[in-house]
């Protein structure tokens, strides 16, 4: 069988071009070259795969020229027709980690070529990309190269061959939210007893199913001058223009709607409705102001109680508890609100 073709991505540091001072090094394709950590990977690949090209790019260059760098590198990678793409490992280097995650995800999504990277679990790139590409969990510095490569190479081979990927503990990748079965060495009861003994002794133990975690964000300062503030409305109550033009799904919070309410003084049964499948829609369909209080805010705008009501509002569906998927697009429209000069947000939920 022919060897799998691998393209490897590394930054300026691991290409031994230089440190921070060379971080603006533009993306470069080195066909036929195996550079830095690529050597260790090659060794692990044995005769099953070979690195046919290495892409080198400075961390600052990548992050500051995100779109161009991504596009350029995608072209470079595509030109080599690899079976699998490997980025990093990035260990605890933040910008390198983000670059590895970005480009690995892009290769997988845009080129349809399986990709894998590696980084320390606290690298910001890990949280950003763990659900998009397999990220091998590494130590926090390059001293952990051997260990990282020992996990990265076999996973790359499996991905390249299209073999099924096992559970995170088996393959060594950072848990990506997809539950995968596998056989443990000990039965569950024995594992439970061991876990309990550790827990009783105050020693660290690892749960096999982490409960959903809720982080906190500190409150922002209060609005000082409400009479001149621009207020925006956001709702998870699924209020949409009649007919649901964006086809917001009733139950899965997979996307959001952005709607212009310029000149809209009151939401009526003829103009707005709810797309939310999580509650009895009768009341909101009869008068959507019951969920999204446009009428009252227009009055207040006229009275000068608030500066203005932002002309766009954002709507999603999702009941209070199912928040995970809402996170990504909420971050997206929050940026838009910010860019539009909004001062504060009223978010209504059902």
């Amino acid at each position, binding site marked *: 069988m022919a060897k799998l073709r691998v393209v490897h991505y590394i930054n300026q540091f691991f290409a031994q071009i230089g440190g921070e001072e060379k971080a603006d090094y533009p993306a470069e394709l080195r066909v036929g070259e195996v550079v830095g950590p690529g050597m260790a990977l090659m060794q692990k690949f044995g005769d099953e795969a070979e690195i046919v090209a290495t892409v080198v790019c400075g961390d600052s260059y990548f992050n500051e020229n995100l779109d161009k760098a991504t596009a350029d590198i995608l072209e470079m990678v595509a030109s080599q027709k690899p079976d699998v793409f490997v980025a990093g490992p990035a260990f605890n280097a933040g910008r390198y980690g983000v670059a590895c995650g970005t480009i690995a995800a892009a290769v997988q999504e845009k080129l349809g070529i399986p990709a894998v990277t590696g980084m320390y679990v606290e690298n910001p790139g890990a949280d950003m990309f763990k659900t998009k590409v397999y990220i091998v969990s590494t130590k926090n510095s390059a001293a952990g190269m051997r260990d990282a490569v020992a996990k990265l190479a076999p996973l790359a081979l499996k991905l390249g061959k299209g073999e099924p990927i096992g559970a995170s503990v088996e393959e060594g990748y950072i848990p990506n939210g997809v539950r995968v079965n596998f056989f443990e060495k000990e039965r569950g009861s024995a594992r439970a007893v061991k876990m309990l003994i550790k827990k009783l002794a105050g020693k660290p133990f690892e749960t096999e199913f982490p409960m959903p975690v*809720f*982080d906190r964000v500190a*409150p922002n300062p*209060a609005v000082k001058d409400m009479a001149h503030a621009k207020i925006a409305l956001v709702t998870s109550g699924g209020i949409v223009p009649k007919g649901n033009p964006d086809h917001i799904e009733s139950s899965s919070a997979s996307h959001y709607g952005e709607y212009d309410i310029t000149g809209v003084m009151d939401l009526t049964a003829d103009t707005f409705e709810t797309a939310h499948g999580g509650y009895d829609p009768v009341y909101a369909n009869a*008068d959507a102001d019951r969920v999204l209080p446009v009428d009252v805010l227009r009055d207040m705008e006229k009275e000068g109680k608030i500066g203005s009501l932002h002309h766009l509002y954002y709507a*999603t569906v999702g009941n209070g508890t199912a928040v995970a998927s809402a*996170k990504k697009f*909420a971050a997206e429209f929050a940026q838009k609100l910010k860019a539009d000069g909004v001062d504060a947000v009223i*978010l209504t939920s059902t």
Partner: protein
Amino acid sequence: MVKEVERAGLPVVHMCTVTPISMTVGANRIVPTIAIPHPLGNPALEPTEEKALRRKLVEKALTALQTEVDGQTVFDN
């Protein structure tokens, strides 16, 4: 969702019927509302009364936005 808005640097008030859920999702300024299918209304009321009720709730929300808070705060008066 409310957290992402807050994270972006915008003060946000969460108007929500079941305040414990609002606490769970990490809202900092919380205004309790009427009922799940009609948080800012009450179909049992006359339209003018209903709008007055909604106005009161939105005023409460604006007050919340103008109040400095330390951590999660429910504005229920």
